[in-house]
């Protein structure tokens, strides 16, 4: 721990503590975890940028069907590569203390594959495909049916896609969103 501590100045740590939901100790723990992904690289430079493949070694992201999307959303260079700050951002959003609204915002970005600020039919299709995994394939008819149902339940203005307010409304009313959208540090 001593060595990790020396990598940050007090001011940096204070900033991190102020701007995230973590305490200083947790921030150092997060850095330890980040470092364990690429010890030699991060050991030299605490803000080293790790490639997406390295980030995807993180246990929770490795098995997550949306791992690559998560990397892209939180990466400051938008290509999936992450610095420690991006990593901290990510863990911050997935932490227990993070409010539902912020989580919903990022969940929306993660599932918005084509980046048009709407969860359209193609986005929903990808979400469902990834959720079911590579082995289990739903046929087209079923897929259409499911998407149709989803839109019927949540698309209030009938424009054929979920906008953020609609998505937020749905997650706000869901009992399990907070429980499931969470990665413990």
């Amino acid at each position, binding site marked *: 721990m001593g060595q990790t501590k020396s990598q940050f100045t007090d001011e940096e740590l204070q*900033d*991190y503590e*102020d*701007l995230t939901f973590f*305490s200083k*100790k*947790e921030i150092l723990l997060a850095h330890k975890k980040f470092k364990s992904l690429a010890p030699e690289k991060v050991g030299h430079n605490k803000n080293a940028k790790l490639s997406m493949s390295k980030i995807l070694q993180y246990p*929770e992201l490795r*098995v*997550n*069907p949306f791992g690559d999307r998560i990397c892209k959303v*939180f990466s*400051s260079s938008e290509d999936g590569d992450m610095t420690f*700050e*991006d990593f*901290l951002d990510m863990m911050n959003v*997935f932490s227990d203390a993070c*409010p539902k*609204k912020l989580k919903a915002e*990022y*969940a929306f970005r993660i*599932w918005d594959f084509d*980046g*048009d*600020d*709407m969860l359209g039919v193609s986005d929903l299709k990808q*979400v*469902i495909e990834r*959720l*079911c*995994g590579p082995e*289990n394939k*739903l046929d087209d008819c*079923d897929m259409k*049916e*499911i998407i149709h*149902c989803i839109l019927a*339940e*949540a698309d*209030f*203005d*009938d424009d*054929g896609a979920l906008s953020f*307010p*609609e*998505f*937020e409304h*749905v*997650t*706000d*009313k*869901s*009992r*399990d*969103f*907070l*429980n*499931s*959208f969470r990665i*413990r540090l």
Partner: protein
Amino acid sequence: MSDCGQENRIFVSDDAEDLDRIEVITTSTTSSHSALFTQLEGSQNLLTTSGNEQQFRIVTGTSTADDVKSKHSDCGGSRDGADEQCGDESIELISNFGTLQYRRATSPLAVLASSFNRGATPTNMMRRWSQTLARFDRDKHGIREKTIYRMPSRRYLQADGKLLSNSRCDTENEVELLAQEIEQHDGLMQDTALSHEHRLETLRALPQPLATKRLLKRKLAISVEQHAIEETRCSWCHKLTNAFISFLLRSWKLVGVISHTLEIWYDEVKTIEGHFGCNVSSYFKFLRWLLMLNVFVLFFVVCFVIFPQLLYNTTANEINLNETVLADKYVGNSSETASGLLMDVFTGEGYLQNTLLFYSGYSNATFRLHPTLSQYSLPHAYFMTMLVLYLLIFIVISTKMARVYRISFIQAAGGGRAILVAKTFCAWDFGISNRKAAELKHIAIFAEFKAVLNERAVPKRKPTIWWRIWIFCSRAIAHVLVATIIGGAGVGVWILLKELDSTDDVSGWRTLSTAGILNLTMLLMQSVLSWISRMEDYRSPRRTLHIALLRNFLLEAVIISVLVYFLLTKSYSQCWETHIGQELYRFIITDSFICLIIIPFCCVTRALLSSIYWPWLGRPDFDISQKSLGLVYNQTLLWLGLLFSPLLVAIIVCKLFLKFYINKALLLHLCKPSCHIWRSAQTQTLYLVFTFVSVLGVILTLGYIMTQLPMSAQCGPFRDSGYMFQIFIDGVLKLRENQTLWRILTLLVRPAAVGIMLVTLSALVYYLRAKSRARRLMVKLLKEMIYLEAKDKEFLLNRIISVSKNRDWSLVDAKSLGRRRQRTPQTPQTDFFVQNEINSNHSARSDGFILRSRDV
């Protein structure tokens, strides 16, 4: 005008607050928009914009109404199609629109952003409503809404490649905009500790990367400093409150850090979560929470009751003064053999009877802990510690339950209809880190989708009358059966207790029979009840589970209350308090024996048999619901016994500690993960509700014991006072018959006063209920309004798009414009007549559309 024959009206509101406003209310929803539109066109002063010198109409006048209508029918068939076709025109139109309004803004995106941004304020009604909310809450909310809705839906920008490439504002611009928004809120920009904390909170809740937040923080700090320099007058009172608040904030943060450090088993729980998901880990978290609560209780009991008593015992032994203690200590020395000692450990009899484990081990002495300290009265310490602990437990549990209940029932109300959405967006447990678990999860999700599809594929037959009668009858029979079983169990327990009591020889191992039989009965009954509720064929598994849990809890409650009633009414030779403590001690010991040895043994045996001989047996399930209920039962016994056996809590702490490790080992090595998705948020709340009910029951029972039952005169700390509560009344409050406080107290407990209180409370409940109903009605109305407004917005946007295809801007109705110019003198910049608002509405957050006109 309205060819469609449907009603559309335009109401001109003369609201005092908003003279510049025309409310458009449609009484139809979808089909008659074109009629509405024509009507809008007819009222020529609408939908017009004017810049400094230029004026042009966005929407054509009456002369082109037919033209527009035909356009609408061209591309209005499918609205989405129309959007795509007319995409670029709309952008141009909207950006033109914006440039006129905000000439200074340069980036087309910023223009768009600001024009849409104006819509982020709630409508008047919502504003009024939200004013009653907490001030800072509103500020935070407002800012966040603005930052999220600052960007219009990018769908309308897609057609224009240039705009899309501009869509990422550079960070500085972004920071600038955000800073401006936050600076508007006075509450956030003061140089006080509270405001600082709120500012940070706002920053934390922003959906922006860390770098942006840091820049923003620096920027705000600078502007706050400037602000503070301007406002140099600062009274000492102000400073004092500020210092106090900052002290409170810091200590609160420290408490958070400490409680986080005290969080034990972090890695273990994380491992379990990685392997089995958050539902299983929630059981372990519940266990951990109860353990921490019990450790807290143990700490206080040891500090204030046990430690002083130990100290007293040693001094008493040394000086050989107190004969009663010595006599008590050596009265049960008969069984010195090893087997006798073992038996004593299980039964709580013999040697253990007069130790600190039970009530009779405590003396009623008042003495000095240390020669320099003042007197320490053991009875007072005993009573006050227990009283405070029970109250604290009650407060902790009720607040926790209220919070969880609010989150999982009240806030989530109305979300029950969006089943498939919840199944999609909350399906993946992000905490899973194990590949095997992930594969299982994929399969489970797939199966769930399939199940939903199958259910939809089967055409829903209207249930026949016979079917309904059958369902009704079977459920009624099941309920009656369960009621009989529970009642029978109660009666059976009563008979059994009487029987065992009447037999003379109740010593040695036979004393364990009551506890053993009751615990085993409960175990068997629970599986019978679960089986019955599975037979009942409820549609949702959650309902089945809840009903089974409720019945099991009822069974436990009945058995425990029969036991308590029996124990309280039984006639004792001496020291009835100790006997009650011993009985509960035996219950807890047998329950621990079953939980820690027998059940794990069964699990291991089954796992071994299934892996070696009979594979069809399968590995055991990890039944979270039964185990959680077991924890509640355990806790109820503890709370009942704590008053007369303070060290029980130490036993429970050890038990929970062992239980965690045993269950974890069983789960990770032997049990199979559940193959269906089990959503537990509500069930967790149910356990807390059960815990709350049991703690309430226990407190009522103890209240009865304290006030109604005379204490035994031979042993224990309260042997001198007739009733337990008298030690409080006489000793602590020093009340005498004719004091005013005493009179007030006696007045308060008279039936009339209690009756008045009850009536007042009922009236209050009635009032709140009526209020909540009215709110619900209001929410419903607002939702309908949102729906209509969303429809209007969509329709009008499409109309703008289709009209913008026809770029003939010369069709300005010059006459009407001229007329208007005469009436209203030019006001710079703010003088625009159309403003579209994307309303972020509070209750359903859908977009709405309101037409405004300054010129009515």
